[in-house]
């Protein structure tokens, strides 16, 4: 078991306020890890740190031989301009960026790959629709198709099943299991504890810091969940500089 991701005393945040505070730990290659915690616990922030959009305030996130751009990242889909006139086919095709780059054309092989990906998420026949015509569930299926094409060793899904009906989330969780079977490392932020218990062998319970991290059944206990809820507070504008760093002796 080699570590795919390694958190060394990572603090991530905004305007000096930590959203993830002094996180330590490793994620083994091929893990299927659920990240749970209340709103504001730092789940999305942690993901933004992993994919390199947010620089840590302190500490490091080790990726080993992996480049940040080789991680497939599915954010909560608020930033997509759904009025933009692009077809489902072209949108999903952007997932092939690593092989096509700036100029590479989408040839026959790419066309087949895109068709297969759309079929895998149950969107056959949607190729020429513009993305603005999709329902919420279809949108999420399309985003999964793009992740599929990215063919990444590490896949990071931020609350992928929010506002998605049972049928769609069951289909998509099937894909997640399939990725796990392919030995890819999959991280997903989730709120549905039953779904986590049924599908994810490992869980990180996050509330700025790690409340518990390990086998799902041992992490998701009533005590731990209660503690997570208590630890998560609003930013304090009058907060002092974090004492942990100051107290640590400088390397001689």
């Amino acid at each position: 078991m080699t570590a795919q991701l390694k958190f060394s005393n990572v603090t991530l945040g905004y305007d000096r306020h930590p959203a993830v505070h002094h996180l330590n730990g490793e994620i083994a290659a091929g893990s299927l890890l659920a990240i749970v915690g209340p709103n504001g616990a730092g789940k999305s922030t942690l993901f933004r740190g992993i994919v390199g959009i947010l620089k840590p305030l302190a500490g490091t996130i080790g990726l080993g031989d992996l480049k940040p751009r080789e991680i497939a990242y599915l954010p909560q889909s608020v930033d997509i301009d759904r009025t933009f006139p692009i077809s489902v086919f072209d949108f999903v095709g952007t997932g092939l960026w690593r092989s096509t780059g700036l100029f590479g054309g989408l040839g026959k092989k790419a066309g087949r790959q895109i068709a297969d990906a759309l079929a895998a998420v149950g969107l056959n026949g949607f190729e020429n629709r513009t993305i603005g015509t999709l329902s919420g569930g279809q949108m999420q299926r399309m985003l999964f198709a793009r992740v599929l094409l990215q063919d990444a060793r590490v896949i990071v899904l931020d609350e992928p099943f929010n506002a998605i009906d049972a049928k769609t989330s069951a289909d998509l969780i099937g894909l997640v299991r399939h990725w796990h079977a392919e030995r890819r490392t999959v991280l997903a932020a989730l709120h549905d504890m039953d779904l986590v218990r049924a599908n994810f062998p490992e869980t990180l319970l996050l509330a700025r810091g790690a409340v518990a991290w390990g086998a799902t059944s041992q992490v998701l206990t009533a005590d731990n969940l209660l503690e997570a809820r208590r630890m998560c507070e609003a930013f304090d504008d009058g907060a002092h500089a974090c004492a942990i760093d100051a107290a640590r002796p400088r390397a001689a």
Partner: protein
Amino acid sequence: MIYDALIAPFIDFEFMRRALAGVIALALGGAPIGVFLMLRRMSLVGDAMAHAILPGAAVGFLFSGLNLFAMTFGGLIAGFSVALLAGLVSRVTEIKEDASLAAFYLVSLALGVTIVSMRGTNIDLLHVLFGNILAMDDQTLLVIAFNATITLVILAVIYRPLVIECVDPVFLRTVSRAGAPAHLAFLALVVINLVNGFHALGTLLAVGLMVLPAGIARFWSRDITGMMMIAVASAAISGYLGLVLSFQTKVPSGPAIILVAAALYVVSVLFGTVSGLVRQLFPGRHLEA
């Protein structure tokens, strides 16, 4: 009769042929840029930038008269300075980018008009404000054609990152560093095409052949490739019909071209197949599935 009105002017007069070549080059370069301006909700930014290039062109004019290269070069420098300064001010202070751009372009426009009137006559001022496509010399035509060519080549290079940055900027950031350079290159193309339009249509109307055709295209196509084709075609048609109109009625050429484009725009708003008004009033019966 129709021949006399539509074709004869271009056969009889060289300046009409030259003007026609000019507007077609403008359409080829400017219209696709206009489509991206519209899709990025930057149409008014384009308009503001058009005014911002004036002082640069005016300084060029001050030093070397109606010399094309000096005015083009000055315009490019002024355009970039305003774009960068506005971006900088909005990033380091609380003010939003649109507000800071508005402030800078107003200063720019006032400065430009002042500089032109310091040396030139009212005719020069009119030339700068409204352009004169009928008085283009070979050099001007070559510069316009060159700029249009450059535009199409660069647009082809940055097309994919530009599109992805419009739809899903976070995704682009996670797969590539091309986002910021593509955006800057796009701004450069906006400025280059404004300078282009500036020669033919003047500072006030330069953005017209970019924004109006894009608006027209939105009503006829749901697809970005289709939009760009339609935008180019409608810009070229507006240019041609505008020249004819100007020739027959003595309306100045710049406003004539823009008025034709505006007429096409109104027709598109009314009858466009994609969310045109008539289409909305009589949508046909709903489908089964």
